C-alpha cells in the first residue's frame, strides 16, 4: 500500500481513526523542519514514518533529540529498493538450469523500483528509529527516512548527535556502500579487511545456494511406459505449492 497520505487529507478510510498523539508529533516535526519533511505516513495507533530530504537528515536528528526529546537511539540502517536480479525468490543458478530443463518458464526479475511506506526517489534510503524513553506513559517512537543520492551514495553522519550511531553507520557503510560524511572512522564492522563488495545490496548474490541443487526440484520421474498424460512437475496435488517454489 504505497498510497501517499499527506497530513492535511488523511486517506479516506471509512472509520477515520485519528491518532492525535502521532499527528501532534508530526506537526511539531513539520514546523521544526519546514519543507525538510518531504512525506509522512501514520498508521493510526501503530506507527509514524517521516521522510525528510537528504540534506535535512542531520537536522532531523537534532530536532528529534533536542527539540522533541527523543533521546533514545534505536538503530540506523539502509534500505536497498532494487528488486533482486536473481529472481523473485532467489532460486540458484543450478535450479534455473533444472527448471528450464523441466520446461518451467524462468522467473523474469522485474527491474522497476517500487518504494515502501512514505515513498522515495532513489534506490538506497537511510532509515533510523529514535524513541522517547524514561517517562512512563509517554513513550513514542518514530522512523525517519531519507533518500541517499544514487551518484554520491553518501549522507551526513548522525555521530555528532547520537554517539551510538557510530557502529550502525560502520555496518551500513560495510554492507551497503553508503559513506557517512563526518563519521570518525568508517572501517569494517564484521567482514575481514580485504573483503570487497557490499553484501547486503540486492545485486550481491547469496552464494550458499549456488553450489547445491535444491532437493525440492529433483522430481518424480514420469511413468516408464504409459500413455496417460503424466502429471507434470512434482506430480503433487497442490498446484499452488509447486508453482510457489517455496524455495531455498
Amino acid at each position, binding site marked *: 500500500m504505497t498510497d501517499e497520505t499527506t497530513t492535511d487529507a488523511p486517506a479516506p478510510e471509512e472509520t477515520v481513526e485519528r491518532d492525535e498523539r502521532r499527528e501532534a508529533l508530526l506537526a511539531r516535526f513539520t514546523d521544526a523542519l519546514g519543507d525538510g519533511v518531504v512525506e509522512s505516513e501514520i498508521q493510526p495507533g501503530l506507527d509514524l514514518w517521516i521522510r525528510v530530504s537528504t540534506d535535512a537528515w542531520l537536522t532531523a536528528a537534532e530536532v528529534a533529540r533536542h527539540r522533541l526529546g527523543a533521546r533514545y537511539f534505536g538503530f540506523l540502517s539502509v534500505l536497498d529498493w532494487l528488486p533482486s536480479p536473481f529472481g523473485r525468490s532467489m532460486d540458484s543458478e543450478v535450479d534455473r538450469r533444472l527448471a528450464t530443463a523441466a520446461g518451467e518458464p524462468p522467473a523474469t526479475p522485474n527491474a522497476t523500483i517500487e518504494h515502501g511506506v512514505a515513498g522515495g526517489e532513489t534506490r538506497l534510503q537511510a532509515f533510523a528509529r529514535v524513541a522517547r524513553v524514561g517517562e512512563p506513559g509517554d513513550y513514542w517512537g518514530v522512523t525517519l527516512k531519507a533518500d541517499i543520492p544514487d551518484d554520491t551514495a553518501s549522507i551526513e553522519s548522525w555521530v555528532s548527535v547520537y554517539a551510538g550511531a557510530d557502529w550502525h553507520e560502520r555496518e551500513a557503510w560495510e554492507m551497503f556502500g553508503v559513506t557517512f560524511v563526518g563519521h570518525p572512522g568508517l572501517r569494517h564492522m564484521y567482514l575481514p579487511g580485504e573483503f570487497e563488495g557490499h553484501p547486503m545490496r540486492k545485486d550481491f548474490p547469496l552464494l550458499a545456494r549456488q553450489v547445491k541443487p535444491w532437493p525440492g526440484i*529433483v522430481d518424480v520421474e514420469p*511413468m516408464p511406459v504409459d500413455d496417460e498424460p503424466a502429471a507434470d512437475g512434482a506430480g503433487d496435488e497442490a498446484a499452488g505449492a509447486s508453482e510457489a*517454489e*517455496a524455495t531455498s
Partner: protein
Amino acid sequence: MAPKPKMPGVLKGLGVTFRTAMDTMFPDGPLHPPSPSKGAATVQYPREKETPSPRARGVISLEEDNCTACMLCARECPDWCIYIEAHKTLAPPRRAGGKPRQVNALDRFDIDYSLCMYCGICVEVCPFEALFWSPEYEYSEVRIQDLLHDKERLGQWMETVPDFEAYESGSESKVKKVPR
C-alpha cells in the same frame, strides 16, 4: 578507604556453600546415612539416564506407507537435508473392479542429520502425517556419513514415537493419533 569486611556479608556466603554441601551429602536429614548420589543434581549418564520429555525433538521417524512423495518437506526444509526419489506405479484399485490408481512409490527418503537443525518444519508441513518426532537421542556416529539415515532406519524409529499426550484443560486442539 580500607575495605571494612562487614562480617555478615562474607559469612552468609560461606553459609550458603556449606548448607549446599550438607544438602548434597545428607539429602534426607543429618540423622540418615550420607547418600550424595541422591542429593546431587547431576546424573551419572551411562548408568542412569534422564528420560527426555515426550515432545522432545530427538529424531524424525517416517511412516513409509503414508508418504506420497509430495516433496513438500524437501521444499520447506531450510537446510535442504531431505532427499527424496520416487517413481510412479499402479496400485490396486480401492474398490474391486475400479481403475488401478496411480501412486508415487518411494525409492529413497534420506534425512541427513549432519545438516538437520531439528526445526520441525518438515514434520509440521507434511500433509499426510508421515513424519513424526521421537525423543530418541542416542544415535551419534563415528563417521559423519552414517548420519544420513535412509528409509529403513527412519522406519525403525517409528516404534520409539510416544503417543501424543493429552492437552492442558481449556485447550481446544484435539489429540492426534500416531499410526501404529
